[in-house]
């Protein structure tokens, strides 16, 4: 009775004859290799290089001051007030974007899971915002929020939310809401599509059984729909959170990080540090810090998911 521990061929076996075992073990890599090679070359190698920058002083404005500086960039980071402010903004930016995107997306998905006249057209139209280039939507929304030439401040005043039409994007307390709105507009289709796919994969007979057992609509929702969706929700939320935390385009175009850094999030801060101040070393350190935080977040979420998901 011979038992092997690995899929690998033992030395002395017919390697020359290319055993079926070996063939089947190697096969997947043929299909996988182009993708892996490209990712490795274009993303991973530069990533490593980028991380190495964070340990160097690469300030293009002071070209003779380069060299390895160890953790100096990181200690500078720890005491940088602007960084912590950006971190806080990142949190609020991500939190509100995700929450609104998720709930509106869920509502839309549930709506699309029913039947109504013109649904196909509706579905096609309502997913359109995803196809709009982000900087274009940023410009449009900036326009919409502009008190002089855009409608939103006037409408909000008419509704009584604002005392007078004024520049939301210019108010440090409210400015973040501009990009958040644009982000929600942009991101709802993504959530809607993925949640719709998940909703449609829930077997219909579970609802029928629940109805026979006397469940109300709300109970069916909380006891069948949500648990079934939970794994999908967890992964999607995690991925989107990370993506949104990194997503600086909208903010950059709409507010440039201002006023008074009130809309500056960590990744837009990286951008300004890198391309306005031309301090690549410090910018890389900030980026590495952000990456670290997001990875911790991802791990926490995955652990939580394992514990909570029973389906």
């Amino acid at each position: 009775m011979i038992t092997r521990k690995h899929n690998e061929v033992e030395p002395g076996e017919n390697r020359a004859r290319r055993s079926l075992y070996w063939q089947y073990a190697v096969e997947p890599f043929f299909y996988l290799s182009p993708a892996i090679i490209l990712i490795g070359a274009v993303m991973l190698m530069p990533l490593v290089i980028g991380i190495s920058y964070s340990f160097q002083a690469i300030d293009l404005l002071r070209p003779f001051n380069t060299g390895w500086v160890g953790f100096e960039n990181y200690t500078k980071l720890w005491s940088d007030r602007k960084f912590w402010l950006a971190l806080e903004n990142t949190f609020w930016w991500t939190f509100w974007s995700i929450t609104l995107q998720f709930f509106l997306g869920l509502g839309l998905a549930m709506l699309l899971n029913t039947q109504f006249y013109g649904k196909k057209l509706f579905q096609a139209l309502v997913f359109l915002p995803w196809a709009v280039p982000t900087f274009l939507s940023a410009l449009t929304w900036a326009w919409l929020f502009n008190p002089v030439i855009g409608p939103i401040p006037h409408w909000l005043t008419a509704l009584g939310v604002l005392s007078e039409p004024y520049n939301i994007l210019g108010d440090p307390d409210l400015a973040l809401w501009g990009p958040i709105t644009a982000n929600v507009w942009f991101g709802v289709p993504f959530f809607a599509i993925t949640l719709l796919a998940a909703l449609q994969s829930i077997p219909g007979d579970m609802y029928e059984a629940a109805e026979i057992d006397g469940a109300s609509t709300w109970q069916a929702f909380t006891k069948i729909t949500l648990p079934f969706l939970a794994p999908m929700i967890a992964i999607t939320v995690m991925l989107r959170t990370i993506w949104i935390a990194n997503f600086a385009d909208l903010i950059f175009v709409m507010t440039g990080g201002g006023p008074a850094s009130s809309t500056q999030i960590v990744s837009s801060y990286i951008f300004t540090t890198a391309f306005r101040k031309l301090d690549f070393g410090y910018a890389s350190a900030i980026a590495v810090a952000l990456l670290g935080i997001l990875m911790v977040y991802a791990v926490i979420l995955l652990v939580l998911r394992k514990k909570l998901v029973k389906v």
Partner: protein
Amino acid sequence: MIFTQIQRPAMTLGKYAAILFYLTFALFPLYWLLKIAVTPDRLIYSDGTRVWPSEFTLSNFSAVLFQTDFLSYFSNSLVVSLGTAGLTTIFAAGAGYAFSRFNFGGKKIIIAVMLITQMFPLLMIIAPIYKVVASLGLLNSLTSLIIVYTAFNIPFATFLMQSFFDGIPKDLEEAAMMDGCSRFQALRKVILPLTLPGLGATLGFVFTAAWSELLFALMLISKNDTMTFPVGLLTFVSKFSVDWGQMMAAGVLALVPSCLFFIFIQRYLVQGLTSGAVKG
């Protein structure tokens, strides 16, 4: 949610209200974009908050099309986006197939790595990539954009393709292999025809993503004749000191391909994600 429908009037009213809300929410900004594009220059500021323009004109469009380099930007973008979409779909189909059909050592690690590439800000690698591309002499070339964009899109496209492949039973390839095909032949003759919706969806998705990419295009291309349209659009800001009418007109024109593509493929996206038995 499929309860046997007993129509309750309040629910139906609510449903149609929701439909109206979502429709308005999605389309209003696009409408506004269109509105500005058709408003003649002089009225842009005074017409500002009016919902319906007082005058229509197509002069912005004609100006953009014939007086600027817009057409060249547009065709550059087309080349890059189509190229990226095609290349990404091929690579992602391979990778997605591998993930769907095989269980091999290192699979989890590779998936984790792909996940990580989605996590860090692309800003981090913009400088190293610039250096590498420059040293290869590939600055200002559309090819370099295609290669870079393909790498960025592969992880998500792989996830999509894997979902689609998961929806096709494994024994189809096995039957084909018993019938005399090599696995690759089986893939080509039997599986791929069945994943056409999936391929279409991935193509459309990547096309849309590549179409609107701004940052790396800005970085890697500075010569006017190879600029893609996002970069070109930004030049309107400086060239015409924010000529809004023309800019929005250009934006509308540029929207057309990606919106068309997306409308076409979004149905397949939902279909494919569902049939792939979406796993957490």
